[in-house]
Every structure is written in structure tokens, then in C-alpha cells.
């Protein structure tokens, strides 16, 4: 048992995950305080406020980050909070477009360019944020993800000229550039509150920012996304994935336990 063929581990994991997805157990998901803090901070925004959403992730982060992104979009549209989406990652515009394709039809009274806009990916990394602090349209190189000239006739830019005009920021991130850049360029210097939605492996490195108060809560991976879906009363893919995550964790822990038991027995001999 100390050296089980890894293919056996893979097969058992696949069976456990697929089983949980096909036959959900409906395990209850409790809400973590850090997710509640993030939700409450966005809920405190007023109609007309602009929330900037940093789509700093690629397709690999979709299962963990997109559900929370959709839930935040839903929450903001319900409260008439405007959303400006862009990112430092190459797939930023496409990730935003995926989100809008699914969520925008739920709000037929909300208009692209008035209530939300997808500026997309622009080159420069943290320099993009620095430029956007002075002038968002110039940082966007006068064009959005859909090829529209900015600011054009889009009313969203009437009262939103730069990141200084944002009331809140949310960074959905799978790595670098990401959270530290938002905090360094937007959060700390401008004093604009924000929160983050990160993949599970990034939670430990971002906890210091929560503790220091530099961010308002944190949406922790797929579990955080599931909690946020429940907070906006729209359970979706993240909640559905919780059973699969539970079984996968149990399988891994069982193998670790078995490996250690046989290791200790071997050591005694």
C-alpha cells in the first residue's frame, strides 16, 4: 500500500468525481465569514456606482472563478450598480464575454455600454492599471473587446473617466499579474475598497491582504464561489461541484492514511 500504482489513484478519483456529478449528495454548504464580508461590501454599493471587475484569469480558472463572477454580476445588476470589465490576462475579454453571454439576457433592461461594458484585454500588465488610474479610455487604447470605439456614445463613461471614479473593484485571478497589482495600484494608493476571487491554490498567499484589511473579504476558490451563489440565491455550477470536491478530498485523504499506516507498520518491523 505504500506504493500504489498511480493509475489506480487516478481511476478511483475519476470514478468518485463522476459519481458525485451524476448522483449529487446535496451536502449543505455553510457560508464562510470572508465570503460574507465580500458580499456585504458589494451589497453596500449604491445604484449608479461603478464596480470594476478585473478578469485576470484564463480558461483554467473558469470552474472556480466564473461562478462567483456571474453571481457578482447578478448582484450588481439587481442593485443597478454598473460594471466595467477588463483585465491584464490575454483571455480577459473572452472570459468577460462568456459571462455576459450567459448573464446579460437575464437583464433585458440593462444595456451594453450603459450598465456594463467589456473593455477586454489590453497589453501592459500592471502598467495597464497605472494608465487606467489616469484615463481608462486611453488605457483601453480607445477600443473595447467588441471592437467599438471608446468612449463613443457609451453613457457608462459619462461619470467614469478613470479608476479613481470606481466605487469598488473585484479581481478574479489565477496568478500573476493579478491581486498584488490591483492592491498596489488601485486599492492602497486610491483607497478604493475591493475584494478578490482566487483559485484555491492562491488562497494562502492572499490571506495576509485580508488580515491587514487591504481587501474586503475573499472568495476562496470553488467553495467561495458556491457560497457566493447561495448568498445571491442562485445555486449553480459551483454548488453542484461541491459534492465532487468532497469525494475527491476524501479519496485523497484515504490514500494518504493508507500510505501512512503501511509506512508505520513497515517502520515498526
Amino acid at each position, binding site marked *: 500500500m505504500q506504493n500504489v500504482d498511480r493509475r489506480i489513484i*487516478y481511476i478511483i478519483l475519476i470514478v468518485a468525481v463522476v459519481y458525485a456529478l451524476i448522483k449529487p449528495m446535496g451536502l449543505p454548504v455553510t457560508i464562510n465569514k470572508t465570503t460574507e464580508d465580500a458580499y456585504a461590501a458589494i451589497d453596500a454599493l449604491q445604484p449608479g456606482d461603478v464596480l470594476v471587475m478585473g478578469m485576470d484569469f484564463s480558461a483554467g480558472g473558469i470552474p472556480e472563478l466564473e461562478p462567483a463572477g456571474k453571481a457578482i454580476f447578478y448582484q450588481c445588476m439587481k442593485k443597478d450598480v454598473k460594471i466595467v470589465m477588463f483585465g491584464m490576462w490575454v483571455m480577459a475579454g473572452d472570459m468577460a464575454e462568456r459571462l455576459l453571454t450567459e448573464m446579460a439576457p437575464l437583464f433585458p433592461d440593462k444595456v451594453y455600454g450603459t450598465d456594463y461594458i467589456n473593455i477586454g484585454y489590453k497589453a501592459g500588465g500592471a502598467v495597464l492599471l497605472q494608465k487606467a488610474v489616469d484615463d481608462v479610455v486611453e488605457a483601453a487604447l480607445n477600443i473595447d473587446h467588441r471592437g467599438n470605439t471608446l468612449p463613443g456614445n457609451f453613457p457608462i463613461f459619462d461619470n467614469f473617466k478613470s479608476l479613481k471614479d470606481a466605487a469598488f473593484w473585484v479581481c478574479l485571478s489565477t496568478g500573476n499579474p493579478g491581486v498584488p497589482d490591483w492592491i498596489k495600484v488601485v486599492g492602497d494608493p486610491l483607497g478604493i475598497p475591493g475584494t478578490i476571487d482566487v483559485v484555491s491554490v492562491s*488562497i494562502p498567499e492572499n490571506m495576509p491582504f485580508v488580515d491587514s484589511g487591504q481587501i474586503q473579504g475573499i472568495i476562496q476558490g470553488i467553495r467561495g464561489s458556491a457560497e457566493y451563489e447561495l448568498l445571491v440565491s442562485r445555486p449553480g455550477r459551483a454548488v453542484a461541484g461541491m459534492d465532487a470536491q468532497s469525494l475527491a*478530498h476524501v479519496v485523497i485523504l484515504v490514500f494518504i492514511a493508507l500510505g501512512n499506516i503501511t*509506512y508505520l507498520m513497515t517502520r515498526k518491523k
Partner: protein
Amino acid sequence: MRKELPLAITFVVGLIVVLANFLAPQTFVKINNEVRTWFQLVSSLFCALGVANLTRIHGKKVSQQSEGWIFSVIMFIAMFGFMITALSVGQQSALYNNLYNNTIVPLNATMYSILMFYIASAAYRAFRVRSMEATLLLIAAAIVMLGKAPIGEVVLGKWVATWTNWILAVPNTAGMRGIQLGATLGGIAMALRVLLGIERAHFGGVGGE
């Protein structure tokens, strides 16, 4: 001049950026804003440089039919196929979106998802109670894994979530803060070395002085 000119440019531009951020004299701020725009343009140019370099390297593989050359052909089809599609019919077209959403997105997601298997296999082999530190690591990992999945609270009770939050908020935060402080100080030292021309590895040299 081949060595001195890039060093001089690095020093002057770096000094302008630093002074514009910390002292903010108007002239330097204006120059800094211009530098940022150029940075964006040069970053975009890097993409073109990347495409050119990939074409050169993989073109050589295909022409010489080196090992794995068929994968280079697939890479060319994918790279230029997407470029031509985007330039001809536009990124908003149904064709481009179908291609993108049905190839790049699932492949990218799959590459990330494969990590689950490697982590499981690595955890099984690495988490052994060989020492006190290894035992503590194992216990902390087990608590966090159970705390993050709903099944932990259902089977063991609320204490698992409480302990998970404590582990992340206290010892983890303390350790990460130390690591991040050290990394930042190291980054500042490296930046000073680059600014002053002591570090020249990025110019194609080997290490610095």
C-alpha cells in the same frame, strides 16, 4: 556603445519612473505617462516577436522533420488558423467564437484540471509521518482539506471549519507575510541592481558583476 547604451537607457528611464512615482515633478510625470503608452505598444510587439520566433523554431523542426515535427505542424495550423480567422471574419463572428469556445477553452481548462491527478498522487507519496514537522504538515493539510469540502463539517462537525479558518488566518498568514516581505526586499535589491547596471543577465550576458 553596445553595452553602455542599453545600460544608460535603463538607468535614465528607470530613474524617471521612480522619481515620477515618489516625487512627482510634473515633467517626469508627463514623461512617465508617455513611457507607459510606449510600454503597452512594445508589449503588443512582443506578441508579434513571439509568433515570429515560434515560426522560426518550429519551421526548422518541420523542414528537418525532427522528432515530433508533426506537433509543430499542428501548432502552425492552430496559431495561423486562429490569426487568419480573427483577421478575416472578426473576433465577434460565430465562426471564431465556436472555434475558440470549443478548442482553446476546453483544452486550457483540461490542462489545469489534470493537476488534480498529479496533486493526488504527489500528496499520497509525500505526506508521510517521517518527522514531527512532516506530521504537523500532514495534520494541517488534512484539516484544511476536510474544512474546505462540505463533507468535513457534515461528518466531523463545525470545529473542522473553525480550525481551517484559524490555520489560514494565523500560521499561514504569518508565514506568507514573512515570505512576501523577503521576496519584496529581494525584488527591490534586484531592481536596484538592474537600474545601476550591476545585473546584466537580461542583456544576454551571463549573470552580473
